[in-house]
C-alpha cells in the first residue's frame, strides 16, 4: 500500500506477488504446527517451543519465508520490499521511507520473536506432551497419513502423543512455497541489472497517445506528475519508455530509483539489527527469565497501557462493534422505525381521522339538514341529490374512490385554468 500510495507501483505489484508465496508459506507453517504439534492451538507462548528438532521441514520453510518477509538478501522479499522503500524515498517521500524502514525493523523483530517462541527454547504446553481430551482420536487420523514421523527425535515418554512433523500433504506445499519464496524475487532482480527486470516489462503501462483532448468526467485521466526523473532515473521522458511526439500522454510518469548496494545495505543492516535485538530480548525474557524484563508490562504503567492497547488491537474492533454497530442496529434503527410508525403513519392516521370527522359533519349538517331539508320541502325526488353526498361518510372503499375521481377531475380543471 505504501508503494502504491507513493508512486512506486512496480515494486508494489511485485511485492504482492512475492508476498503471496512467503506469507502463504508462513500461514501453512502455522497450520502445520497447529495440526501436528500443538493440538490445534496457535498460542505461541503457551503451547509451542523447541519445535525445530521435531519439525525440521516446517522449521526450514518457516525460516526461509521469515527471511523473505524480513527482506533479507537473496530471498524474494528483499527484491520487492527494498525496492518499495528505496522508491518511496526516491519519489520525495523521505518521511515515509523512514517509516518504512522502521516497519522493516519491527517486522524483523516480531518475526524473530515468533520464531524463537515456536522453534527454540523448551517445549511448553501441548508441544511438551500436555494434551487435550480429543487428542487420542485426533492422533489416529494423523498417523494414517504420516509418511515420515519425527517421533524418534523426541525422547519422551509421550512419544505417541508428542509433536511430530506433518505428513507430505502438508510438507510438500510448504516446500514448494518456500522454493518460490526463495526464488521468485529473481523475476525482478533490479540489483542484477535491467535484463533481470522481467516483471517490469509486464506491469509497466505503455504510453498511449491520444490526439484529441478529452473532456472532463469519468475516465478522464490526467498526466500525473511525479517528481521528475533525475540522473538516477531510468527514463527521462514523462511517458516512461515511449515518448509521444504530439498529443496527450495517457501514461503516468514513472521514475525508478536506481539500485545502490549502499542503500540496500542500510536497510539490510536495520533488519539484522531488528533480528539481533529481538533475539537478545527473547532469550532474556523467555529462556533466562531475566528479572529485569519478565513482568515489565505489569510493573510499568506506560508499558502496561501500551500492552493493553496492543492486546486489544487498538480498540478498533471494540469501537466498531460496541459503538458503531450497536448504535446503528440499536437506537438509530429504532428511532427511524419509531419515526415511521408514529410520525409518518401518525400523519396518515390524523388525515384519516380528520376526514371522518369532517364527513360526519357534512352528513349531519349538509346532507341531512340542507339537502334533505330542501328536498323534503320541495317534495321532489331525493335520490339524485342524496346520492352525491351520502357516500362521503359511508366508509366504503369504492365510494372513497369515486370521490377521489371526481376530486381529481375538479383539480385537473383548476390546474388547466391556472396554467392557461
Amino acid at each position, binding site marked *: 500500500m505504501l508503494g502504491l500510495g507513493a508512486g512506486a507501483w512496480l515494486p508494489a505489484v511485485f511485492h504482492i506477488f512475492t508476498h503471496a508465496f512467503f506469507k502463504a508459506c508462513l500461514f501453512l507453517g502455522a497450520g502445520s504446527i497447529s495440526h501436528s504439534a500443538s493440538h490445534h492451538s496457535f498460542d505461541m507462548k503457551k503451547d509451542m517451543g523447541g519445535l525445530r528438532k521435531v519439525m525440521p521441514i516446517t522449521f526450514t520453510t518457516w525460516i526461509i519465508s521469515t527471511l523473505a518477509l524480513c527482506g533479507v538478501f537473496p530471498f524474494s522479499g528483499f527484491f520487492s520490499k527494498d525496492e518499495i522503500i528505496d522508491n518511496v524515498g526516491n519519489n520525495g517521500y523521505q518521511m515515509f521511507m523512514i517509516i518504512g524502514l522502521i516497519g522493516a525493523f519491527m517486522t524483523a523483530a516480531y518475526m524473530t520473536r515468533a520464531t524463537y517462541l515456536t522453534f527454540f527454547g523448551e517445549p511448553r504446553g501441548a508441544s511438551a506432551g500436555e494434551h487435550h481430551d480429543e487428542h487420542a482420536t485426533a492422533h489416529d487420523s494423523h498417523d494414517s497419513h504420516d509418511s515420515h514421523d519425527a517421533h524418534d527425535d523426541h525422547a519422551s515418554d509421550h512419544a505417541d502423543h508428542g509433536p511430530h512433523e506433518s505428513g507430505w500433504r502438508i510438507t510438500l506445499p510448504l516446500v514448494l512455497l518456500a522454493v518460490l519464496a526463495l526464488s521468485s524475487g529473481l523475476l525482478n532482480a533490479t540489483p542484477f541489472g535491467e535484463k533481470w527486470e522481467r516483471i517490469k516489462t509486464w506491469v509497466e503501462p505503455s504510453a498511449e497517445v491520444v490526439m484529441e483532448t478529452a473532456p472532463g468526467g469519468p475516465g478522464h485521466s490526467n498526466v500525473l506528475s511525479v517528481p521528475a526523473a533525475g540522473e538516477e532515473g531510468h527514463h527521462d521522458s514523462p511517458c516512461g519508455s515511449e515518448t509521444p511526439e504530439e498529443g496527450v500522454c495517457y501514461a503516468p510518469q514513472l521514475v525508478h530509483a536506481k539500485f545502490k548496494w549502499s542503500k540496500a545495505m542500510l536497510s539490510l543492516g536495520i533488519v539484522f539489527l531488528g533480528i539481533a535485538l529481538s533475539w537478545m530480548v527473547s532469550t532474556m525474557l523467555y529462556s533466562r527469565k531475566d528479572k529485569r524484563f519478565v513482568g515489565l508490562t505489569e510493573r510499568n504503567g506506560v508499558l502496561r497501557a501500551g500492552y493493553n492497547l496492543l492486546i486489544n488491537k487498538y480498540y478498533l474492533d471494540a469501537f466498531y462493534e460496541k459503538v458503531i454497530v450497536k448504535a446503528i442496529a440499536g437506537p438509530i434503527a429504532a428511532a427511524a*422505525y419509531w419515526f*415511521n410508525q408514529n410520525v409518518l*403513519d401518525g400523519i396518515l392516521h390524523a388525515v384519516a381521522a380528520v376526514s371522518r370527522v369532517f364527513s360526519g359533519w357534512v352528513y349531519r349538517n349538509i346532507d341531512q339538514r340542507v339537502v334533505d331539508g330542501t328536498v323534503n320541502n320541495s317534495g321532489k325526488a331525493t335520490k339524485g341529490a342524496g346520492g352525491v353526498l351520502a357516500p362521503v361518510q359511508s366508509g366504503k*372503499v369504492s365510494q372513497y*374512490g369515486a370521490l*377521489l375521481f371526481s376530486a381529481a*377531475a375538479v383539480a385537473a380543471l383548476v*390546474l*388547466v385554468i391556472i*396554467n392557461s
Partner: protein
Amino acid sequence: MEMLRDHNWMLSVGTFLPLLGVLLLLVVPKANEQLIKKVALLTSIATVAVGVWTLFRFDFGNAGTMQFVDEKTWIPLIKSSYYIGLDGISLPLYFLSMVITLLVVIYSLDHIPSPGNPKAFFSLMLVLQTGMAGTFIAQDLILFFVFFELVLLPMYFMIGVWGGENRQYASLKFFLYTMFGSALMLVAFLALFFKTGAESFAIPYLVENGGALAKNVQVWIFAGMFIGFAVKVPMFPFHTWLPDAHTQAPTQGSVILAAILLKLGTYGFVRIAIPVLPEAAKAWAPYIGALAVIGIIYGALGCLAQTDMKRLIAFSSVAHMGFVMLGISTLTSFGMTAAMFGMVAHGLITGMLFFVAGSVKERYHTLEIARLGGILKQMPHLGWILGFSCMASLGLPGLAGFWGEFPAILSAYSPAAGLNETAFRVYMVIAALGTVLAAAYLLWLFQRVAFGEPKPEFAGDGHGHDDHAFHDVNKFEWFAWTPLLIAILVFGVVPNLMFKVLDPAVQVVLTGFKG
C-alpha cells in the same frame, strides 16, 4: 416514431388470456377444487407460452422500437384508443409478470391460505395478471390508467380476505394510499391532455408534444405523476402502506406485490413521466435522487429495527427501490438501464425471499426472528435457499442483485448534463453506504434464523407430535422456486442478456434530453 406492427394479436392474447381462464373458472363448481387448480394452472401455462412465443418473435436487434403495435378505436369521445406495443423496457417486465403468476399459481396448488376458496383466489390472481401485463404494454394514458387501477382490486381482496391478523387495516391502507396517488396521477394525465391540445392520450403523441410545454406547466404536471408513481414504488415518505400490505398479504400476494406491483411505479417514471416531460424531469431529478437515497438508508434502518422476518423483507423493498429510483433520477441511459435491471432483479430476489418467508411461516407458524433459529439444521434446503436469496438481495457480485445496485450507484457519479454533479456524488456515497447496511440486515437475519440450534420450542425432530412440522422444501415449492433461483444466477453471471435488450429502449426514452 418507427414501429413494427407484425403479429399484433400477440400482446392482446397474452394479456387477456388470463381473463378467459377466469371465465372458465366461473362455470366450475366451487367444490371441485382439483378442476379449479387445473384450469388456473393451464391458463397460466398458456399465458407463459404466449409470452415465450413473444420472446421468440421479438426483434432483439430493434429493442428500442415499439413492436407488435396494435391500435384500435376505443373511446373516441375522449380521444382515447386501444393502443398497445412492446419495446425493450416493457418486455422483461411483461414476461416477468407472466412467469411470476405461473410460479405463484404452482405454489398455490399446495398452499391455499386460510380461509380457502381456491376459486375466488385463483380468479383474482388471473385478473391481477391481466392488469399487470396490460400496464406494461399500454401506449395510451387512459388505457394505462385502467390497467394500473385494475391491479388494485384483486390485491385489495387478496390482502383483505386471505391476509394476516391485521388484514383489514392493511388492505384499506393499501387501497386508499394508492388511490390517493392515482387520483393525482389522473389529474396530471388530464392536465397533460388538455395542455397538449386535447388531441390524444397516446404516449408517443404526448412524447412528441409534451416537451414543448412551458417549464412551470411541466413541473406541475410532473408533480401529479410523481405522487402517483412514488406511492406505488414506494418512495420515502410515501412508503408506509408497504410494510403493512406486504406483511399482512398472503405469501402469494406478497410475492406479486414485490415482484411486479412495485415496478408499475418505476415503470411509469421511465415510460411516461420522464420522456413526456423532460424539462420537469430535470427540475425534479435532484429531489427524486435525494428521496431515493433517504429511502435507501431509511429502509435499511427500518430493516435493522424489525423483529418479524416478513416485515424485514418488506422494508428491504423500500431500500432496494431507492437504488432503482437513484438510477432513474440520474436521467442517464446508464442509470436508467441499471434501474430497469434492478427492477427485474428485485422482482426475482424479493419474490423469492417472500416465498421462503411464507414457507417458514407455514412450518413454524411464526416469523418472529427471536423465536426462529437453526433452519439450516432442521431444513437444510430451505436454509440454503434463504441464504442464496439473502446473498442475492444484498448485491453479491455474480448474482442478479448486484447488476441493479452497483451500476445505479456508479451512474450517480456523472448524472445527465445540467444536473448538479456535487449533489449526485453525495448521493452516490450515501447509496454506497446503504449497501453496507443491506449486508448488515440481511446477514444478521440469516444468522439469526438459519444458524445455530433450533429454539427449544421447535427443537423436536417432528417424530413425536406432528410428523409434517419440519419437512424440507417440497415438490411444489421446488417447481415454483427453481426458475427464480436459476434466473437469479443466470442474470448474475450474464447480465448482458438483459442489458442488451434494455439499453436501446432506454436510449429512445431519453431522446428528449439530447435535442
